[in-house]
């Protein structure tokens, strides 16, 4: 039996020089940089938004049914934990929204230069902070104003 058809090697030639080649560097090897951070955050915020979509359906179904069902979902949303989740959701939304536009611009061929990529990345973060702050200021102002 030669090394090349040894089942323990999974059919690969373990004694081949192929195996001495460097492997593709993984996450922990890289220095953190904004291009990598924005990419990872795009996926992470997308997952948060999907979880939020579950809450959206719960809310819409509760509005349609009304009565106690609506009261129960409204209680979850207005609970501090619910408000904390909505806050997180709004950050995820504004991030995914702005960075998604950045992705669409890349798809259109704009902004691939390193300089523009960094500038658009920082713009996304600035947008998230401003949009989240304005949204919650308006929302709390509305509740505080006895709406």
């Amino acid at each position, binding site marked *: 039996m030669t090394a090349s058809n040894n089942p323990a090697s999974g059919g690969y030639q373990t004694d081949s020089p192929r195996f001495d080649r460097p492997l593709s560097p993984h996450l922990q090897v890289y220095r953190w940089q904004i291009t990598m951070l924005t990419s990872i955050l795009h996926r992470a915020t997308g997952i948060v938004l999907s979880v939020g979509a579950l809450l959206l*359906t719960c809310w819409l179904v509760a509005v349609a049914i009304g009565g106690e069902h609506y009261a129960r979902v409204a209680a979850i949303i207005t609970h501090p934990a619910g408000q904390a989740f909505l806050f997180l959701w709004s950050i995820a939304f504004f991030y995914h929204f702005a960075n998604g536009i950045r992705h669409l611009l890349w798809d259109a061929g704009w902004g691939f230069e390193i300089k523009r990529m960094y500038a658009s990345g920082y713009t996304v973060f600035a947008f998230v902070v401003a949009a989240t702050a304005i949204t919650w200021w308006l929302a709390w102002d509305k509740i505080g104003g006895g709406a």
Partner: protein
Amino acid sequence: MQTPMKRVRGLGSAKSGTEHFWMQRLTALALIPLGLWFVYSIVTLAGADHDSVVAWMRHPVRATLLALFAATAFYHSKLGLQVVFEDYVHTGWLKFTALILNNFIHVLLGAAAVISVLRVAFGD
């Protein structure tokens, strides 16, 4: 081998071609105005009681935008989570199960959302 016909149809070996890629972009584009409108609406509804929410949702333009937002968002979410499962779940049967459940749950939640909006819009 890429025949001219294959190139014209845009279908590769997966037979579905660039549909996933394209629909992800198309739904993303649609969600730019729909998403902004949705967040704006949620802010205006902050602290509103059930009657006000129902009255708000009964407006035909709002019901249309809300149903479109929900349907588009769930489609976009389905495509996005599908890629997450494809990237991180490597056990054959588990990946297959996750992808099927991903489809079912998104269709279920999306349908429930749209039907609820329509129920309120056409309600008594």
